[in-house]
């Protein structure tokens, strides 16, 4: 075990995989000489050369499409979306080509591509540069969508992603690049489709992924301290494939659930989680499933507005108290 940042854990996964497999290349805007906007790929161009760390013009549709072409034809490209906000320009390629090629070619073509980048808001980037797109990409069959929250997971899931034979949407918690955690040495892959119980508890299930997992841990501590409520915190990690089993087991135990997400409420991951719970654990529910989501507005700029627009400790505590039938 070594303690490292989320950023370094991610970078080490990329470098290890490039070392191991020559078909792995990186492609994106300013990932080479510049070092990457978030320094995820810093100095990798020196180590692997410009044929493997490919700086592109600012043209997401074109270079994402080209990377899909590479993936179809024997390579394993890892595309950096400087931020996922720019992926709308590439979403036609991701959805219409990457996700569907295996199917409409009758299984003749695979697209082993990883598209990665920071996701979510919280640093005053305002409307066009703040999105949480897990629900959006999670909608499309043919894609896999993951959102690791810890250094250990970001490394282990990136190793899995690069080796996966299908397109993987890899949503990093941009706000967590600098956070530290223990990361196992060596080839410690983390499987997709398996949620992580970040904290065990018996009274209520708090469910999220990405940077909200840390928020939930904070909420759980506060509930324990102030109300003697033991909350179970579940980190979904993988949006598609989805680990229904862990969620259902937890809710059967606690009888209550709060799902938290930064994205908008309507047609979202939390909506899906709530639906899964009522389908499979209806007779175990003692209260309606609560959702805490981003405000239904484009992301604002001013700091106070931005804080109000995203789930915070108090909103999650309130939701938990509603589910617990407590005044709080």
């Amino acid at each position, binding site marked *: 075990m070594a303690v490292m940042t989320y950023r370094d854990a991610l970078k080490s996964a990329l470098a290890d995989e490039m070392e191991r497999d020559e078909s792995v290349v990186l492609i994106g805007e300013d990932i080479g000489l510049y070092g990457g906007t978030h320094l995820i790929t810093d100095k990798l161009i020196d180590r692997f050369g410009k044929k493997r760390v490919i700086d592109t013009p600012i043209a997401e*549709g074109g270079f994402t499409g080209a990377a899909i072409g*590479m993936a179809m034809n*024997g390579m394993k490209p890892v595309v950096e979306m400087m931020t996922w906000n720019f992926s709308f320009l590439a979403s036609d390629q991701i959805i219409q*080509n990457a996700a569907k090629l295996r199917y409409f*070619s009758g299984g003749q073509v695979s697209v082993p591509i990883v598209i990665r980048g920071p996701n979510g808001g919280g640093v005053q980037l305002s409307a066009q540069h703040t999105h949480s797109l897990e629900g959006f990409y999670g909608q499309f069959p043919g894609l896999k969508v993951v959102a690791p929250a810890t250094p250990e997971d970001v490394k282990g899931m990136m190793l899995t992603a690069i080796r996966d034979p299908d397109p993987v949407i890899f949503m990093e918690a941009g706000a967590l690049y600098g956070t530290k955690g223990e990361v196992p040495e060596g080839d410690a892959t983390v499987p997709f489709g398996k949620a992580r119980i970040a904290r065990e508890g018996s009274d209520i299930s708090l469910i999220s992924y990405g940077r909200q997992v840390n928020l939930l841990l904070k909420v759980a501590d506060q509930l324990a301290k102030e109300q003697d409520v033991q909350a179970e915190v579940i980190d979904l990690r993988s949006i598609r494939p989805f680990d229904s089993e862990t969620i259902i087991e937890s809710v059967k135990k606690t009888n209550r659930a709060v799902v938290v997400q930064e994205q908008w409420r309507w047609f979202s991951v939390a909506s899906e989680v709530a639906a899964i719970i009522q389908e499979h654990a209806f007779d175990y529910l003692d209260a309606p499933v609560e959702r805490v989501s981003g405000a239904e507005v484009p992301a604002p700029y001013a700091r106070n507005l931005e804080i109000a627009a995203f789930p915070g400790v108090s909103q999650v505590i309130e939701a938990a108290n509603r589910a617990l039938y407590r005044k709080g």
Partner: protein
Amino acid sequence: MATTHHTNETPTDVASNGTAPTSTVSPETLLDYYRQMVEVRLFEEAATRGFRQGKVGGYLHVYIGQEALARGFLDAFRKGDKTITAYRDHAHVLFQGGDPKATMAELYGKGTGLVKGKGGSMHLFDVENGMWGGYGIVGAHIPLGVGMAYSEAYRETGNIIQLYLGDGAIHNGYFHESANLAGLWGKDGMCPCLFIIENNQYGMGTSVERATANTNLGSKFDSYAIPWEKVDAMDLEAVIAVAHKAVDYVRETGKPYAVEAMTYRLGPHGAADFLEQYRSKDEVREARKRDPIGLLEQRLLDLGVTDEEAMEKIRAHAKELADEAVKFAEESPEPDLSELTTDVYAPETGLI
């Protein structure tokens, strides 16, 4: 037929400034290609009948009038090369050796179809024969072809990509982003991609004149420092000559090259395009005089390698093949329902 080069990077071996290339193709090969073109023509007519009967679903775009184009460029195709095109894709499959029966079965939505009944007319793939797909979104396959070319160079295979696109796709952002990448990567010999504009004069119902102020479509490649030329794609021999020059250049240099191939869509845009209000019957009638199959017939008669009787036999045989393909398609079983959920993810992942 005139060829033109508008670039500062004209390869010396194709700098033929305005003179028509002479065909090196033998009369026997020409006759064989004539046979194939007639077979494709009758296949497309049979497919249209299938559509009218309600047996072919979805959209159906046929290659009638453009046969010399794909047949000509594929003369320079070598095993390991790959083609990629948009949705007018039946002819590429057939000229590359694809099975007409499996192709027709795909149009009929049968389990014996080329892609198991999962793609239909717009998504024909025959990867074994180097045909990497039909794509349904105009322009969106162009970056795929460029990326595939990068991979050939990266893996040092010596193979090239023949990337077919319609005149309509030139105005699409993907074309410009991809051509820019191709030119850029070509500087390092990392993009062995031959762009082939199938300029059939119409992007769906919008003529080139109504789509762009610069109708000299090949010149769009000038912006990306990609050499290009124009060819009369109703003339099979002219296409073959240009194809070899272009393919050789791409293969040797790892750089992209482009050909604007002038053709004409004698049929409708798609089977549902029955009004054709955007062009006159006279225009089509006039264009029919330069039907590539008709031109080739005349050429073969002039060369003395065939006669009316032999050509009639070829047509009769082509009709038999088309009928056989239809019969096979009609008699084939529908896809097994279990196929609904396969090929969404790789089988080993156990996901559907």
